[in-house]
């Protein structure tokens, strides 16, 4: 099986007033197509940075990042954007819906960007799929947090992405709502056969993925399948 996502000796440093700050060092990781991987770690461990690099939102300081067989490290921002448009979907902690567009228009946007003439119909179907068929014409600020995240999920699947990156998708939601959103995310993921990379600090959520990668201070300290993770998760905390 070919790797959908592959990081080779990836590193990221940023310049601060107190010198170079190392955020990620020597990350090597391979994720197969249709695999669901959770990246866990405490705040500041470098999870979101790693997600940004894997999704091509940022460029690495060193190493190679391959996405869908293409080396992001050798691409410029324009090429990365095109690749994102083709292959990548996102779900963010803060939803990141465009506040001036309706729910329907938010979901239509990535479809339209692919010049798909059926954008409206496809978007409406997806919103129906996430249970928001009665909210098509609502603006984000007229929706609850859970509803906004469901719109975001519909948008993420709208572009028929091969890879879905989710950054703390339940971080802004209460437990019950978060659980419903996660159910939805996983069921759609299974349905579309998407590769899922989920960043969270919530171990219980991570256990729903087939594999868990733990970051501590910018390094991978664990990379285990979920069954194993259930057993060794507590030990890792000791």
């Amino acid at each position, binding site marked *: 099986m070919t790797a959908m996502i592959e990081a080779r000796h990836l590193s990221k440093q*940023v310049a601060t007033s107190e010198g170079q700050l190392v955020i990620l060092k020597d990350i090597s990781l391979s994720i197969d197509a249709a695999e669901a991987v959770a990246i866990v770690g405490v705040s500041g461990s470098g999870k*979101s*940075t790693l*997600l*940004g690099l894997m*999704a091509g*939102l*940022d460029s690495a300081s060193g190493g190679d990042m391959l996405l869908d067989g293409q080396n992001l490290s050798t691409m410029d*921002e*324009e090429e990365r*954007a*095109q*690749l*994102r*448009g*083709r292959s*990548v979907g*996102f779900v*963010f902690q*803060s*939803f*990141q*819906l*465009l*506040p*001036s*567009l309706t729910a329907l*228009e938010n979901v239509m*946007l*990535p479809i*339209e*960007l*692919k*010049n798909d003439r059926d954008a409206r119909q496809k978007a409406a179907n997806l919103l129906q799929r996430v249970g928001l068929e009665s909210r098509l014409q609502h603006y*984000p*600020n007229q929706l609850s947090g859970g509803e906004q995240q469901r719109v975001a999920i519909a*948008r993420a699947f709208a*572009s028929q992405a091969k890879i879905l990156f989710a*950054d703390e998708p339940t971080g802004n939601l209460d437990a019950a709502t978060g659980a419903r959103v996660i159910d939805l995310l996983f069921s759609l993921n299974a349905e579309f056969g998407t590769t899922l990379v989920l960043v969270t600090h919530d171990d219980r959520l991570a256990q729903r993925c087939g594999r868990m990668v733990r970051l501590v201070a910018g390094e991978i300290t664990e990379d285990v399948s979920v069954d194993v993770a259930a057993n060794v998760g507590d030990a890792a905390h000791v």
Partner: protein
Amino acid sequence: MSESAQTVSASATTLMRVALRLLWRDWRGGELRLLLLAMVMAVTSVSGIALFTDRLERALVQESATMLAADRVLSGRQQPPREWLQEAAQRGLATAEVQAFASMVFSDQGNLLVAAKAVSEAYPLRGELRVSDQPFGAAYTDNDGPARGEVWVESRVLPGLGIDVGDTLYVGDGEFVVSRVLVQEPDRQQGGMMDNAGPRVLMHLDDVPVTNIIQPGSRVSYRYLFAGELAALDVYADWVREQSDGDFRLRDVRDESQEVSEALARGESFLLLGSLFAVLLAGIAIALTARRYSERHFDYAAIMKTLGCTSNQISAIYFGILLSLLIIAVVVGSLLGWLVHEGILILLQTVIPIALPAASLTPFWLGALTAFICLFAFAMPPLLALKHTSPLRVLRKDLVDAPLSTALPYVFGIAGALVLIVWYSQDLLISVILVGAVAGVALLLSAMSYLLLRTGSAAGMRAGSAWMLAMSAVRRRRRQSVLQVLVFSLTIMSLLILALLRTDLINDWQAQLPEDTPNHFMMNISDSQVAGMQTFLQENEVDANPFYPMVSAGLLTVNGAPAPHPWDDDDDEQGRSTMTERSGDNDRDADADRQDTEAGGADATDRPQRVENRQVTWTAQLPPDNEVVAGSWWAEQSIPGRVSVERDYAERIDVNLGDELVFRVNEQEVTAIVDNMRTVRWDNMQPNFFFIFSPGTLDHLGATYLSTLLLEGQEKLLLNDLLRQFPTIVVLEVDALIEQIQSIIAQVSSAIELIAGLVLIAGALVLLSCVNATLDERFRENAILRTLGAGRKLIMTSLLIEFAFIGLLAGVIATVGAELSLYYLQSEVFQQEFALHYWVWIAGPLAGTVIIAGLGFAATRKVVNSSPLAVLRQLSA
């Protein structure tokens, strides 16, 4: 290849669709209202003002053309070559021919000096001849002119010769029947001496040879009249200039009346300055609102990038938004501009008596082009900077620099402003003054912002906590505070400049031609007639004005050396002939150089001794509108042999206080010492003199007298009795000219008021956008402050102090900047005397404080009134 091209083209429509959708949503959300409003404002003010001035100018040109009876007049002391007339006809121009000369005419009962004018059949090419069948009878239009063997005469000729309509009159050897009474001819005022010699007798051109009056050496003003398309006229004018060697002068109406053209030129300068201010202010508002809009769209751009939008696609989307805005702004702005100018026209119905010609399309192009420049210079840079937004922003806002931190928008903005200024003013001087003022303000600001931070913190330590909060807010938003002070002071400065200029211009004009300006000149009054005329005026209850003695004097030497010729290096200045000089033409020496002005003939540069004759007077009292600027006016019991010289003229002939001048007056030499220098209001249409002598110097040299009268409506009939009783005097009627100038001034004044109003709206827009620009941050800060327990009163007081402080600073800077700019504008562009406007030094800072504090407080009050939790939740979303 073809596939990718297809993708790109398909993308363009998609992107445009996305752009339109964002545009529509942002419009509904109110995000774009200020931006669009500012752009509409720019287009409205430009197209409205341009439409108005375009039509007014066309009207004035048309109206003025009637003052010439043609679009262009070629004149000379000799007959211009006949081929020139044919050439003009071949170029599709209408032509007519005029010969004007002074002549005695006779009847069986008497004789009279008249201003005779012979015209070809096509005369007049512009305007109308109004005639009646009896003296002072009902007038009607007859543009055919007198037939051969007939003359048309002004009413006054008939009593002067003791004849009636239908009687015979002799001009030289010719015998003519008086067939009509001439009530009005379009170019009555234009001929100088030839037309002012007396009442008019109009005859057919072909009758001139019969009279045998014109002999070699006769003083005749020959004129060819032309009318037609502007372009053809210009081409023909160039052709004539190539042929003529300066022997003949081709004039249009601008050359004719200095009073009119000065009023117009100043008015146009003001309108231009006003619309420039309006556009620049709108430009600032556009820049500010576009910046805020783009700041709010960083996240949009980042999200769209995560969805696969490339930088170029982001640019395309925002370019699409701007393009749509541009189209809307141009359409709406042009429409509003049309309404604005129609509004002005309705307001001015009473002062614009003539029907205005239709507007050209030019004003709309101007508006559209202005919007385009504004858009590219002010709105485009911050919006296009959005393409540099990092998509990482969706994950880590704190890590990502805002793409607006570059200097690019400023560079574009300043370049755009410069382009607009130079383009609008077409005048480097105004541009330099404006740019200088802005640069000065910017410099002042940098210095002051530094001080602001220092004193702000020091004072904060000592003062109460609201003050401290306000000062720390000013310090914290240092860049924004400086920007706000800059924008506020530029806005207030523009408004101050316009308000002060407007007041000064209008006051100046009102002083130039007050309501009771005398509108008739009486000349050629002999010493013995003065008392009789004064009695006549008293009996008829007409206010008499001073009778000025007047002689023609030529300056021979200055301190023993031959007097320099005053107009050697600037022929145009010859146009500066006062009403006195023009009216005095009729008794001027035949060899005076100034004859060139009315005859347009060859400049007599090859004459060995050029003596310029001027009409001079003597008086014990300083005439009104004269001001002594060096030396002092002579006392009641003055010593003879003193002369007062007009300042600019003195400079031209290099004369100083105490110099000894020798004049030739009626073949006698008179010596006088320069006792003082005066400034004179040349444009007040009143008797003005370059030289005024002390009483006793010229009294024995045989002067005639000059006086003025105010006669309105029916009072004009008095002229007939006056002329019957004093047949030798000459009356020059300038009422039509004064009315015309007053009407032009009224029009221009109203336009000025309107422009000032437009600029005020533009200014308010800027202030509003500037306050709005900091709103998000204020919401956040004040929500946090209130969460931490700060009371509403404390925050509100601190807001008030903050804005008042910024307003005060802006007011002070604006006042300094306005006075500096006004100094240059008034002395260099508007030819006015500059005086400090003391009240502004209090009003400026006060207005700045009150307006900015009020506006800022009103706009940010909702910051305090909304729940902190709601604010924080909304901002974090």
